[in-house]
């Protein structure tokens, strides 16, 4: 059960929405898909779902292209709420479950279990439009997980949820992953991706500019942060070889460096000036990487 995307390109007329994208999702893995608005994430999802055809390249799930014949194994949460506003929550979930190949009764039982799990069983008889945005999102999530799909595509699943519900949803996603589902999700929130995903990809203008496992991505970024706290001015070291940037903070400063060796040199020369209260070498956050990679090209 592997999702294989090979050299996929999608063109709309003269506009290239996705360019030569390749990735492999092993069964049971969690894949984070990052990118600014308009980077081509939704287009990629639509191609995976079979709603759009790739101009070039191929997308296969378990060796076969995804069509309506195997769509029952796929769960999809669109970026914007996609529910009937005037339909009751229960009826809605049953209907969407049936469309994914469930029997009516099974869909009913499953939807009640999920409502219970998300602590909203009392909404079963309410119309969707009566619910708050966050609760609608819960229903939307249930609709995408109800039929126990083996490939789950979540487009911005955490948007509109409060921190408590974000945790609830994270737990639910991790649970279905443990049951063997392959999950791919997009997000603007780097911390969520950092927390959940083993693999990730950053899209920019239709191209995957960074991809791999979280560790490789961080290592491959080739930069680390050195955090120093001292009572004297540290700015004299910003001209040192190997320091790419320096940022002054209230208690000291942050150096961005290319190699770990430089960190120790910084420490040594700092100690010559006085006492150091804190020294640490930190991996770059995804946020740093994203801003560096995507932000720079924009600038």
């Amino acid at each position, binding site marked *: 059960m592997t999702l294989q995307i090979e050299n996929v390109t999608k063109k709309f007329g003269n506009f290239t929405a996705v360019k030569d994208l390749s990735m492999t999702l092993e069964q049971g893995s969690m894949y984070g898909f990052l990118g600014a608005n308009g980077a081509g994430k939704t287009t990629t999802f639509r191609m995976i779902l079979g*709603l759009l055809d790739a101009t070039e390249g191929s997308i296969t799930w378990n060796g076969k292209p995804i069509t*309506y014949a195997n*769509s029952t194994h796929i769960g*999809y949460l669109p970026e*914007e709420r*996609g529910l009937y506003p*005037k339909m009751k929550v229960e009826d809605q979930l049953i*209907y969407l479950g049936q469309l994914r*190949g469930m029997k009516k009764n099974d869909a009913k039982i499953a939807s009640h279990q999920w409502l219970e799990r998300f602590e909203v069983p009392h909404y079963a008889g309410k119309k969707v439009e009566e619910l708050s945005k966050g609760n609608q999102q819960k229903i939307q999530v249930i*609709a995408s997980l109800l039929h126990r799909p083996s490939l789950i595509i979540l487009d911005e699943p955490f948007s509109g949820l409060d921190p408590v519900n974000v945790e609830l949803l994270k737990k639910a996603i991790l649970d279905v992953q443990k049951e063997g589902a392959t999950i791919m999700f997009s997000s603007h929130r780097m911390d969520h991706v950092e927390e959940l995903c083993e693999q990730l990809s950053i899209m920019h203008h239709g191209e995957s500019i960074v991809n791999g496992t979280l560790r490789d991505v961080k290592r491959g970024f080739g930069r680390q942060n050195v955090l120093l706290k001292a009572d004297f001015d540290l700015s004299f070291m910003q001209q040192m070889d190997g320091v790419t940037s320096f940022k002054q903070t209230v208690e000291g400063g942050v150096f961005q460096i290319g190699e770990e060796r430089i960190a120790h040199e910084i420490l040594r020369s700092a100690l010559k000036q006085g006492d150091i209260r804190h020294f640490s070498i930190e991996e770059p956050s995804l946020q740093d990487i994203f801003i560096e990679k995507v932000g720079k090209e924009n600038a």
Partner: protein
Amino acid sequence: MRDFWTIFNQSFWTKAKTKSFMITTLIVVAGIFLMANLSVIIEKVQNVGMFDGGADSDTIYVVDESGQFLEPLQQQLDASESGLTLKSTNNSIDDLKSKISEEEIKSFLVLSINDSEIIEATYTSENANEFDNPMVIRDALQNLQTNLKATSMDLSPNEVSQLFAPIEFEQNAVSSSSKTEEELSQARGLVYVLIFVIYFAVFYYSNMIAMEVATEKSSRVMEIIISSVSPVKHMFAKIAGVGTLGLLQIALFGIVGFLALKTSSSDLTSGVFSFFGFSNVSIDTMLFAVIFFLLGYFLYATLAALLGSMVSRTEDVQQLLLPMTFLIIIASFIAFSGIGNPEAGYVQIASYIPFFTPLVMFLRVGMLDLPVWEPILGIGILLITIFILGWFGSRVYRGGVLMYGASQSLKDIKKAIQLGKR
């Protein structure tokens, strides 16, 4: 196939269970009963005298200057069962006029005879739009005058009746497709009503389809649906679901209408009943009505679904449906104008143009004895058009439902096809 029925059921029941649908249906049912019993109700209300403001409209005051007409005129009126009573009065005309304005009396009649022995009558009432009474009085006076003249010419009553014997006039037609005048007038009412029903139903349910599609698209639930079921299947299941609902609703109205007319006690309704040709309803005509409703609905619903898939917001649906609305309205114009002359050339031509066929061909089938191949040819062309439109529509639909943006124009059809290209 299971998906098809799931969507079919969903679009049928969610529509059928909405409050607005139920209320509309109930109002129409109530309306049908009201219409069927309208004459009874009007009679009742008139008997109570609610509209007459106290003055008796059946009493007419007469100023008879010659003094010889009052009695024979009353006899004439009684003979024709008009229910009018004449009362002689000596008041002046101005006096009577003021009494009318004060609503003490309803009307008065001034009678005289001129030098050449012709009766001269002036009927005065508050408004000139009174229609029935003057008519009755005029006929009665005409008879009176005839009798008067006959007497003065020494004609016997027998001779008089010979003089006024009506001719026997019968209309025959050479064209093999035309029905006899009797058949035609019987068919006319039924066809008229059915054309209206088809026109209205096709229009109403196609609009419903477009709204449904646009609602699904604007609420983005469409993305989930078409990731589970092919858009083409979704489109046709929806059209079939709403179509079935429409058929059932019309059948309900038909049955209610039939029951209402059967149970309403007034003679007038049964008069209307036979005037509209309902007394011997032609099974063929009804069958064709159902066929043409279904075909017309499928044609326009497919078009509506196609157009509905192009908009991002439900507010824009009506604007994009405008060209389609025009097509239906033009078809109805041709059909209604063709009732008077179903063999006109333009009607014949229009009956083969697929967008007009459902109404115009039905008109011809209902009004004329057409050779069988004509409606079959029309239906054939219509079916082919539906298939072409269905094929084309599903291609537009596939891309259209994924398209979100501000511009809503027919130019986007090209964009939608490109997007939906496989």
